[in-house]
């Protein structure tokens, strides 16, 4: 066993940090927070220039990054809250297109995702289909040369600034559940498309997207007709190894800095036994979260499928974020109530923001309950 990045990966991490120092300016950070954005075209273009969007794919002038480098890249982006989310959803879709999409989609869309010119939002959950994604009701009706789409998608984050939505729709009206679904790429410029802003507790904007008699040529179909579920599963596989723990690390850093600064009585809080102990408990959770996440990513690197391990790392990390942000807020005390946007906030309000941010983490990309169901079945061998 080896619990350390190899020297090359460590050098790569330094390179990523230099990149972020350059491109993730305080001004950009503030702007992103104020507008609730998780995507920035300039930042995405800069990523594309280094081939850090599709790092795992070699292209002219760039070697492919290995699994360790990809993990480090994502950890650093998460740690710094870099505007990376639309880039990552775009890549999820690009991989599906590569695996099952047409030649035309592969030549038209994938290269633009790689360079950051095109971004793709995910349109999966619906008002009546959240954890139960298979309950999808959005319809795609086949017509001459294409499809007419009607329906509504919830939480289509970044649909307002992306060029496309990856859409899961029911193409067989008589089908139920996982069968009869198909995936499409919907240009947001289409007639009949509308994105309505939804603001979340963390301040991030997401969208409800509406599809009304939206006419789509067949070339925008990604999966085989009726094979949408399989292509969706392909897209979601990547979600398990998202480095959630880096968010907790960011808040712990802020709390440890708070602890090291002298308080009103002149002593640093961290010299108090109870403060040290509470911080270390969060640090322990963070250590475990990081190990579980890195194991998941390592398994993927060596070609193993983390059927239970992926859900374990997603579950543990996000629950640790919830526990940890509650604990750090309580520990820092009244001053932790000051909003991230308030000038008097403690260490930029990182902890206050994480507390609000934490709420989404145990919901999206599979709720904690869904993860526990999977672990119970695949790891514990318990019946459904």
């Amino acid at each position, binding site marked *: 066993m080896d619990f350390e990045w190899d020297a090359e990966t460590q050098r790569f991490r330094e390179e990523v940090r230099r990149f972020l120092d350059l491109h993730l300016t305080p001004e950009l950070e503030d702007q992103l927070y104020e507008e609730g954005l998780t995507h920035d075209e300039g930042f995405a273009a800069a990523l594309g220039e280094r081939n850090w969007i599709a790092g795992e794919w070699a292209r002219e002038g760039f070697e492919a990054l290995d699994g360790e480098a990809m993990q480090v890249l994502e950890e650093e982006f998460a740690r710094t809250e870099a505007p990376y989310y639309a880039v990552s959803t775009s890549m999820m879709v690009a991989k599906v297109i590569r695996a099952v999409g047409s030649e035309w989609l592969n030549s038209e869309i994938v290269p633009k995702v790689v360079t950051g010119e095109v971004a793709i939002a995910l349109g999966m*959950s619906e008002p*009546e289909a*959240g*954890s*139960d994604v298979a*309950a999808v009701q959005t319809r795609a009706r086949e017509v001459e040369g294409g499809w007419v789409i009607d329906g509504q998608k*919830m*939480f289509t984050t970044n649909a307002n600034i992306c060029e496309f939505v990856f859409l899961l729709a029911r193409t067989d009206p008589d089908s139920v559940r996982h069968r009869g679904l198909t995936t499409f790429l919907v240009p947001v410029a289409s007639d009949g498309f509308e994105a309505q802003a*939804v*603001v*979340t*507790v*963390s301040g991030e904007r997401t969208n409800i997207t509406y599809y009304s008699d939206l006419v789509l040529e067949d070339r925008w179909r990604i999966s085989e007709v009726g094979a949408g579920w399989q292509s969706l599963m392909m897209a979601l596989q990547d979600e398990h190894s998202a480095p959630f723990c880096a968010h907790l690390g960011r808040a712990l850093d802020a709390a440890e800095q708070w602890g090291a600064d002298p308080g*009103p009585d002149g002593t640093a809080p961290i*010299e*108090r*036994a*109870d403060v040290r102990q509470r911080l270390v408990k969060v640090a322990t959770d963070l250590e475990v979260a990081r190990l579980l996440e890195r194991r998941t990513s390592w398994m993927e690197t060596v070609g193993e499928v983390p059927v239970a391990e992926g859900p374990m790392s997603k579950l543990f990390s996000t629950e640790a974020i*919830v526990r940890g942000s*509650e604990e750090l*807020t*309580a*520990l820092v*005390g*009244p*001053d*932790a*109530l*000051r*909003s991230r*946007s*308030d000038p*008097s906030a403690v260490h930029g309000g990182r902890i*206050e923001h994480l*507390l*609000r941010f934490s*709420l*989404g983490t*145990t*919901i*999206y990309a599979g*709720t*904690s*309950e869904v993860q*526990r169901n999977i672990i119970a079945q695949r790891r514990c061998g318990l019946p459904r």
Partner: protein
Amino acid sequence: MDFALSDEQHELVSSFASLLGKASSPEQVRAAEPGGFDADLWRTLVETGVVTMGVAEQRGGWGASLLDLTLVAELVGRSAAPAPVVETQVAARLLAAVGSPVALDALGPVLAGEQLISLAVRPVHAAVAKLAPAGAVCDALVVLDGDALRLVPVSEANRTTVANLASAPLADVRLENGPVLVEGPVAARLFDAAIDEWLTLTAAAVVGTGLIALDLACAYAVERKAFGAPIGSFQAISHPLADDATNLDGARLLAQEAAWELDRAGDRGRELAAMAFAFASATAERTTYDALHTHGGYGFMLEYDVQLHWRRARGWPRVWGDTDAAHRRAADARYGGSRRGTAG
């Protein structure tokens, strides 16, 4: 042993429930964000006597017990009322308890509804009362400054409003000169007694916060279907809510017991008040989390009401401190002051 409310208490509850139902609807609560103060609501409440009721009759009030006030506080919490009920009630009772001419002079305009006087629940450091409750909207603030209780005038000149998690009307208040109400050991003793009351009423308020969040979650869990069944039929959803319902009942009883004990000046008042605060705020935190989580992605949307309560369950109590701080206070009361140890 009697767990029933009196007829008068039932009436009190129904009149405030009806008032707040009309004047502190979720729409009104949202409209008052982020400032956390609805002047119309406040006027209505003051006219109804929400501050006066808690003051002793010989001081011009109606002599309601602290137990009565917990019933009101719970409704304030339930409706997330953008009105500083708890801190003004406690400040008025404190002025009455001080009883000095200066204090009674200050109390007059409060009872007349002309002045909004609040209480800084934490001691002052470096001449600033940080995160004073209602500091953003009060005319004056009672503060413990060294060994003196003082009445500090508050205006735009000496307050800095603080945007905060709970959308509460908090401010950092720079201490201007203001009359001393009382000084010496008695000042600290009266301040501590006021804190006991504030802790008890805040406990009751966040019980209300928890109860409304639980109601929202249960209603959602009955309506919302997944995998072909209402989500409330899944134990992963229903069992946390059952625990929350249980804890809320316990928290309410404990807050009421603390108030009852303080009302009769019993030995365990301080201990029970701190315990009630600790247990109620922990319960409200957990319940509002579970309730928000029950809503899935919808709970995370500002548009749904449950987040209003999730934020208040944390922000309202924590202007004083967290559950650990309350446990330390309860321990000092139960075991005598600590002579060693750093945690205060």
